[in-house]
């Protein structure tokens, strides 16, 4: 077998990297005002990646580069969803960015580069590779937030994001070095095996674990490490907010799975307790603070914090059902976030950001269809059936009940009631209030179509969630049965 053929599991990453180069170069030559060529080239790249990922899929787990890189069902599913999320994000943000003069070659290049980082995170099976993936992703995102040079808010957001992100990376590295010191290995499988055999110094490991969890919490945006989230979500141009808020959460989920579950599963009694605190704090801080927001991007930021708390409820259950519930939650969250920010961008126009919640007043009278889509998204975020958001909450909560975390579940349920209030407020503004302006909405046909598909998908997967749940369960099962 030739060397090239052995790289099969990483073909998608290699293809993507090549295409990033092609797009950046092509952009110098064929860039028109609207970058039609490079935009479609980017979309084609995403399509190509998904074709490669699907066609190179094998039923077994494949390792590459001395076990540093892994290709399993979970990584394939998460990668496909990442392509989808990035592609949708590009459709939603195209005209938004063109109007603001931000639709540059760098934007496309950085988007794909951050996606490469996510893919590496998803497929990493070694702490150093995980870290490299994380940094590729994070550095690209820092730069993207700062892309709007002349905006003070955006620059401030970028600065905050960078400083706090760098600190989180430091935490992670420190934690990883502790684990390395305790086990003498950076490989996910080896660490797990060594701890299981009782050859490692548990004291040292738990010390490192605390730093790892803190770093993860930073990256996920979980309270009390959430301070950067509202400012970055608010300050960044909405397109960048959408990118930060959507696909990276899939990668972050993979990150949590690889570190906490695949390698540090034997330490579960330690990290599970830490996650309980983080989850409760997140759900409380996120849901309660969101009530006070008047900016919808900030509101979504706090809602993200709360959603991540829910996701952790699935992880901390420490069962297959819990992990697959958390994965389902991540997918549902990404789908809802795409729709939510997509709507913000769809309603914005030149000189108008549509980011105040009052901008949604009377939307039902201006466009009943969009209001209906937003209604579905809001009820889904609130976890009201029949939407995908309900099953997301259902699957993580059922795992938590199964493992006896009844008190935690009751707290989670009560806090989601608090959460329902501010999602309902958006519905109230759209349906019950009179519009503030009667200016005709100018909608981009492609984003309007996509938001319809997005909203209906949230509803339809809510009515028939079986397929997605089965896929999540199968993915998690395959990755973990190795142990």
């Amino acid at each position, binding site marked *: 077998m030739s060397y090239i053929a052995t790289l099969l599991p990483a073909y998608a990453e290699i293809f993507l990297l090549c295409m990033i180069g092609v797009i950046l170069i092509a952009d110098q030559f064929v860039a028109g005002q609207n970058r039609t060529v490079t935009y479609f080239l980017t979309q084609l790249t995403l399509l190509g990646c998904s074709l490669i990922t699907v066609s190179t899929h094998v039923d077994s787990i494949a390792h590459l580069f001395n076990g540093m890189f892994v290709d399993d069902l979970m990584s394939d599913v998460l990668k496909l969803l990442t392509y989808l999320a990035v592609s949708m994000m590009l459709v939603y943000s195209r005209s938004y960015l063109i109007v603001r003069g931000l639709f540059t070659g760098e934007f496309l290049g950085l988007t794909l580069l951050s996606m490469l980082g996510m893919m590496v995170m998803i497929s990493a099976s070694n702490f150093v590779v995980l870290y490299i993936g994380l940094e590729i992703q994070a550095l690209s995102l820092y730069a993207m937030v700062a892309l709007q040079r002349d905006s003070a808010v955006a620059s401030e957001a970028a600065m905050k994001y960078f400083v706090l992100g760098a600190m989180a990376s430091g935490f992670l590295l420190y934690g990883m070095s502790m684990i390395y010191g305790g086990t003498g290995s950076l490989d996910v499988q080896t660490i797990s095996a060594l701890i299981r055999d009782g050859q490692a110094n548990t004291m040292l490991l738990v010390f490192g674990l605390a730093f790892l969890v803190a770093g993860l919490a930073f990256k996920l945006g979980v309270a009390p490490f959430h301070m950067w989230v509202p400012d970055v979500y608010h300050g960044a141009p909405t397109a960048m907010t959408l990118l930060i808020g959507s696909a990276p959460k899939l990668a972050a989920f993979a990150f949590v799975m690889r570190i906490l579950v695949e390698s540090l599963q034997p330490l579960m009694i330690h990290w599970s307790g830490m996650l309980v605190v983080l989850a409760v704090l997140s759900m409380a801080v996120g849901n309660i603070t969101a009530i006070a927001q008047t900016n919808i991007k900030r509101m979504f930021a706090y809602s993200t914090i709360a959603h991540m708390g829910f996701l952790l409820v699935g992880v901390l259950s420490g069962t297959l059902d819990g992990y*697959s519930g958390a994965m389902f939650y991540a997918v549902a969250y990404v789908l809802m976030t795409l729709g939510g920010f997509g709507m913000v961008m769809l309603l914005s126009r030149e000189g108008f950001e549509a980011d105040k919640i009052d901008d949604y007043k009377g939307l*039902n009278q201006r466009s*009943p269809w969009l209001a*209906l889509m937003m*209604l579905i998204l809001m*009820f889904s975020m609130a976890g*009201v*059936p*029949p939407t995908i958001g*309900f*099953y997301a909450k*259902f*699957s993580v*909560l*059922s795992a938590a*009940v*199964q493992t006896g975390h*009844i008190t935690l*579940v*009751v707290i989670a*349920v*009560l806090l*989601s*009631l608090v959460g*329902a*209030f501010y999602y*309902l407020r958006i*519905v*109230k503004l759209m*349906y*019950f209030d009179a519009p503030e302006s009667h200016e005709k909405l100018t909608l981009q046909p492609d984003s309007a179509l996509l938001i319809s598909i997005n909203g209906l998908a949230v509803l339809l997967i809510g009515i*028939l*969630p*079986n397929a997605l*749940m*089965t896929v999540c*369960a199968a993915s998690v099962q395959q990755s973990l049965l190795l142990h």
Partner: protein
Amino acid sequence: MIFGYPLLSVVIWLPIVFGGLVLATGNDRNAPLARLIALLGALLGLLVALPLYTGFDRMTSAMQFVELKPWITMFNIHYHLGVDGISLLLVLLNCFFTLIVVIAGWQVIEKRVAQYMASFLIMSGLINGVFASLDAVLFYVFWEAMLIPMFIIIGVWGGPNRVYAALKFFLYTLLGSLLMLVALLYLYFKSGSFSILDYYQLPLPMNAQILIFIAFFMAFAVKVPMFPVHTWLPDAHVEAPTGGSVILAAIMLKVGAYGFIRFAMPIAPDASHELSGVMIALSLIAVVYIGLVALTQADMKKLVAYSSISHMGFVTLGLFLFNAYGMEGALLQMISHGFVAGALFLCIGVLYDRVHSRQIVDYGGVANTMPVFAAFFMLFAMANSGLPGTSGFVGEFMVILGAVKVNFWYAFAAATTMVFGAAYTLWMYKRVIFGPVANDHVKHLHDIGGREKLVMLSLAVAVLLVGLYPLPLSEILHASVNDLLVHLARSKI
């Protein structure tokens, strides 16, 4: 499937599909078309539900018209439908009232007609789903989903304080539902299934039963509504448009009582017995105290709202007496209260459409200008006070009979409603309808037209039929009630 097609699925999904069609007619330029499609949908919805009645086997307490398909295999959740005598009658009541509401809102609703009609049709399908579900998750999905259209109905077409009322309605109900969800998840891990019928056989220790009962209580007591979690109802009723009030009173309150019958009591029978004292006390407080509160109301809708709470107190009282009289009386009272409260809200709606006030003081001497209306209103007011010969009497009388068998003082307290009920209803009736013409508004009233007459007449027939000849209803209930009593008598510890 006796009819060769999944009858219950049709009953659930047909109104929802029609709701979608109505929505597709778009803005108010197409309002006449929207109304026609809505009428067609509601009429078909009622017609397809009728075979449930004719094809129903009265001899058995087993679930009928059962449909069972896997839905979410990971959690062993099924698309499991079926009706017994209790749910059958509620499904029919719901289909009937959907038609009534569509006709009643024909001219009254002028803005966003399509959305109004669609909300009611979709809600109708969802409520049918609530009554027909035999899988706990399926039930929960319908149960929560039906809040969404009601939230919209109150908030968009409601009165001045509608936003407060809509939010209060939604959040109150959601709180209870979420706790119920925790209980359902717990039951799932005890039994490995979400089938409600499996839960009936599941042995549970006493403390687990008590917790489960409390969780269900939180969900269903809010809906009934029982004292002290009833405060959302007057707000919601006062602010909701007429159609919303009608569905709220006639159907949604029954969903709460139905929940007790389907979930709380048979799943946790020992806890039900243990806590029956509390439940009876709360019911009697509702009957007596809320009856007195109703007496002081100046707003007609509020008065009927409080009267609803008081009458629903009879239902919960009857359920927790654990004898056949009480149980069957409670169920008949549910049906009867649906007709009577629905009719009263429609009567108030008729007045409100003309004068745009719900205050009793703004009326007086309406009989002079609206004699036909006054006659119908009289019948419904009498039924509300429990006059023999009307539907209101049958259920209340049976519950009181059941109460006497348990404790004379229960019956005594419950029977005060015969006095208070008559007092507040007839006093309101007297102030609104009788006496000299009070003001210019009343002077220029015109009597009800053909559409309103049709609605009133069909309700009047229903009220009298149930009052004079309740046998067709009770024979359907009989087997199911006996089965429920058997479940309740068997300890699960």
